[in-house]
């Protein structure tokens, strides 16, 4: 078991680099190795952590292969090839249609898995690199000995994912460096598997996808606990502040700064500079995407404008006077768009230089002068402190001149431009959501701009329509101009990210969740590539909160959820409490805060069920999979990071539902409810094999509509461990949603009834009829596990 390290040469060798003191030679011996690992890591915290080390600390890329195979056996990939060809090497292009193999021998299935692995590696690399920068930045500021404190007294298990995966208990910022080295070694190793003539078995590639997801999850936790500790964000606080959200919250009489991206240090420098110069009330800091959430975790004065899809519309509105970008999910034409509204542009990340001259070493005065005069449309500044000064000074100087001039059009201008439309339909054919643009242009020529403004809600702001239009009609600008009234009413309140879940919250809900009496945890996460606008996410979120599920949110989904009001004018965050409890809506924070959702599931196993976490991945994942009714929903999942985040959840046994665009992730992981033989578990108590029904039915599922998603979410919350009472509650929600949204009582209830106590009272008659029709026989409720060795453990 421990000899996995001997296969981890590159990674472990690098682990030795930063004071962890493992010598390669020692890796040849299992016992010597683990002893030394514990001793060396002991520098971190071992004296105070008595928990015994589990079987897989710092797992190699194959250490959890058996667990992965268990999952993949139940949920084999259903491939949806996005391209029949491969063009990865110069043998190509190869046609992989059907049973054809490429010049290297690869099949179409393995090629899809390889592309998924590539995507998840990109995602994991992005989070790990982001985490690395945050840790470095925090150490530069506070030193490696600065304590990690993501939850004050409320959180003792400070880093559940790191404890679980790495088998260490980090206490100081410096402790995270060793973790990062491990993560980086794993991403490198995984990425190398993608090379031509390397891994070619589809299931081995899928196992590596799951490993990439787990690595990504650790990376996210490193990033978020580092930034919470260093920047003093809310610490596991259910009452994290409500902050302004939406374009209409911005006071356009003041200079306005826009920050786009995910990596917060430059944004924090801007806020600090304003505070240090008593300018906080004179300049407005606004953000799009995750940096927006994170900067509001730092100061409730900052404002969130919207999710990723708000980039073009906000820039074109002309409101921002200076645009600062850090990293991830930023439009690569942001500089071009900024130039159009004469807003100076500042890039701040080595990973996103945007072709701009590096002015990091130049004096602030000179950079400000060049930006204000327009001599340079944009600059690259890699020193966050300098970004803070330059941005604020430039914003104050250019704002009076710019007067918020954007590219919005008057109705008259819209009509004029629409007259150029030849009804060629190229725009609609380029639009990912097949929006009826030509028809709206026709209506606009007659002065009716309602069709155009109606598209505002469902437009994902990609700009593809404009690229396609042979007449160069600025279609997206027409849409947002027609909807300028809607834009002017975007004024909401969003709860900023609270970070981790408190141990005491876990103690309170652990029992009801594992028994099924709280019907589930539903986490709305990820990007904004929605099929019909963000409203659907908000509606789903509220539906499950009303039904007293625990609802978590993060990233762009958290923002979209905040952009809707009930009849009383309240947003979901104002209607529902932020506590991790039945009926709560818990915004954990930006994308990297997703680790806390996984962390909550892990902490249920540790704090509530008292299972050992340390380096004990397989047992904990088996626990979560069989007992914790959690489901992730990434309704607008778009990025490679979203792919990595999802795979981290899969490996932990948590299913993920995506919207219809999610089929473009090239494969689903679907169970076969109709194959009884797939749904047996071991009973830990007796060792018997027990049929438990298809719970959860799928691991990765793309829903066509919101309605289908909601029914599936309720269904995926069922787990083998549910008590009769818990299962009856879960079935009630499933049946009720199915009736309301799909029009009938589901015909598969019999698969989910184990004993008559599972049957909800309300539909007893119909269900009993179904049970008879399917020759149903009563079954037992086991102490479920997929792991044979768990039975032995009980016997011992």
């Amino acid at each position: 078991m421990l000899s996995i390290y001997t296969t981890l040469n590159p990674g472990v060798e690098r682990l030795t680099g930063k004071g962890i003191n493992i010598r390669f030679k020692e890796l040849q011996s299992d016992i010597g190795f683990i002893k030394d690992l514990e001793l060396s890591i002991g520098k971190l915290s071992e004296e105070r952590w008595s928990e015994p080390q589990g079987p897989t600390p710092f797992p190699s890329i194959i250490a959890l292969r058996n667990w992965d195979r268990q999952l993949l056996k139940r949920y084999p990939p259903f491939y949806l090839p996005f391209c029949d060809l491969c063009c990865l090497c110069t043998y190509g292009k190869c046609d992989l249609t059907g049973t054809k193999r490429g010049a290297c021998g690869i099949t179409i299935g393995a090629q899809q898995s390889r592309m998924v692995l590539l995507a998840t590696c990109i995602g994991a690399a992005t989070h790990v690199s982001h985490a690395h920068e945050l840790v470095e930045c925090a150490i530069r500021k506070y030193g490696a000995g600065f304590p990690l404190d993501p939850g004050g007294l409320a959180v003792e298990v400070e880093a559940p994912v790191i404890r679980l995966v790495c088998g260490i208990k980090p206490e100081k910022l410096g402790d995270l460096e060793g973790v990062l080295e491990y993560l980086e070694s794993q991403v490198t190793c995984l990425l190398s598997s993608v090379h031509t003539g390397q891994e070619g078995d589809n299931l081995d590639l899928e196992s590596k996808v799951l490993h990439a997801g787990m690595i990504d999850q650790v990376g996210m936790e490193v990033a978020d606990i580092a930034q919470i500790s260093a920047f003093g964000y809310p610490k596991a606080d259910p009452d994290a502040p409500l902050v302004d959200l939406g374009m209409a919250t911005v006071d356009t009489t003041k200079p306005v700064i826009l920050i786009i991206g995910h990596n917060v240090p430059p944004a924090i420098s801007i806020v600090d500079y304003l505070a240090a110069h008593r300018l906080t009330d004179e300049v407005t800091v606004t953000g799009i995407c995750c940096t927006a959430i994170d900067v509001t975790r730092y100061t409730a004065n900052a404002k969130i404008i919207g999710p990723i899809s708000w980039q073009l519309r906000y820039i074109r509105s002309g409101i921002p006077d200076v645009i600062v970008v850090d990293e991830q999910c930023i439009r690569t034409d942001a500089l071009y768009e900024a130039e159009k509204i004469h807003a100076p542009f500042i890039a701040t990340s080595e990973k996103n230089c945007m072709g701009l001259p590096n002015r990091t070493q130049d004096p602030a005065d000179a950079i400000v002068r060049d930006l204000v005069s327009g001599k340079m449309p944009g600059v690259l500044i890699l020193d966050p402190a300098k970004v803070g000064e330059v941005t604020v000074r430039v914003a104050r100087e250019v704002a009076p001149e710019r007067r918020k001039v954007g590219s919005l059009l008057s109705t008259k201008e819209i009509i004029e431009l629409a007259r150029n439309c030849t009804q060629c339909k190229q725009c609609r054919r380029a639009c990912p959501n097949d929006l009826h643009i030509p028809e709206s242009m026709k209506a606009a020529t007659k002065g009716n701009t309602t069709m155009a403004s109606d598209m505002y809600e469902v437009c994902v702001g990609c700009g593809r329509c404009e690229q396609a239009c042979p007449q160069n009609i600025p279609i997206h600008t027409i849409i947002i101009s027609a909807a300028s009234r809607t834009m002017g009413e975007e004024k909401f309140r969003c709860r900023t990210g609270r970070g981790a879940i408190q141990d005491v919250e876990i103690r309170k809900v652990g029992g009801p969740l594992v028994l099924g009496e709280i019907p589930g945890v539903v986490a709305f996460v990820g990007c904004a590539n929605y099929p019909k606008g963000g409203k659907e996410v908000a509606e789903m979120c509220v539906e499950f909160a009303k039904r007293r599920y625990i609802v978590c949110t993060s990233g762009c989904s958290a923002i979209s959820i905040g952009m809707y009001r009930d009849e009383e004018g309240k947003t979901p965050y104002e209607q529902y409490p932020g506590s991790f409890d039945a009926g709560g809506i818990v915004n954990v924070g930006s994308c990297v805060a997703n680790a806390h959702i996984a962390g909550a599931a892990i902490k249920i196993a540790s704090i509530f069920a008292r299972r050992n976490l340390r380096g004990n991945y397989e047992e904990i994942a088996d626990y979560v999979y069989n007992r914790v009714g959690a489901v992730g929903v990434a309704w607008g999942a778009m990025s490679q990071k979203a792919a990595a985040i999802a795979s981290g959840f899969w490996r932990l046994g948590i299913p993920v539902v995506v919207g219809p665009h999610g089929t473009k992730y090239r494969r689903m992981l679907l169970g076969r409810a109709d194959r009884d033989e797939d749904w047996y578990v071991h009973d830990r108590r007796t060792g018997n094999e027990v049929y438990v029904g298809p719970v959860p039915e799928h691991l990765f599922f793309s829903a066509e509509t919101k309605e289908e998603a909601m029914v599936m979410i309720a269904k995926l919350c069922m787990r083998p461990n549910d008590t009769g009472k818990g299962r009856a509650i879960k079935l009630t929600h499933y049946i009720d949603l199915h009736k309301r949204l799909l029009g009938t009582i589901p015909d598969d209830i019999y698969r989910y009834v184990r004993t008559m106590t599972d049957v909800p009272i309300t539909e007893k008659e119909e269900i009993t009829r179904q049970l008879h029709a399917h020759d149903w026989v009563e079954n037992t409720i086991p102490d479920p596990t997929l792991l044979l060795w768990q039975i032995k453990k009980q016997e011992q």
Partner: protein
Amino acid sequence: MTAIEPWQTAEIAGPKRASVIIKPEVADAMIQRAKHPVLIIGHLAAAIDLDDHKMIDYLLLLAQKGHIPIIGTGNTNRELQKRGYREGGIMPAVDIGQRLCDPTWKGLDGKEPYDLAIFAGLPYYMEWTILSGLKHFAPHIKTMTLDNTYQPHAHWSFANISVKDWLENLKAIIENLEG
């Protein structure tokens, strides 16, 4: 417009592309030849106007005339129920895709494996990806789409045709089945 190219311009698939249903008889022949066809209706069918009706109304007619079982994906079943059609199966589109890849799957009715899967009314890109899955992994089954947009991954598809041509074709297909 009758272009034989994917409706969403960039969704270029690969060398193996759908044959075009140039006249209604082609679709009828496929349906009549099939021993156990299935009609898979996505949620957009109830939103798309065709004449004074919705697309789903024509599909229902087609299913009834051709004795083709229906599976509603998304929330289509509600619309079927509204129209008094109660025999429809319910299954998410990705699940149908996965099941159809299994040559031993006996269909929702448990009778025998489907040999012709007719798709209509799914979001273009989702139908595209699912048909791709079937093209590669379900060689035992023929696929056809009755949307008015070209789906390269099906065996048979209309080109990108106007609503008027589409309606005429659908009516003719239904009529021919009657005969």
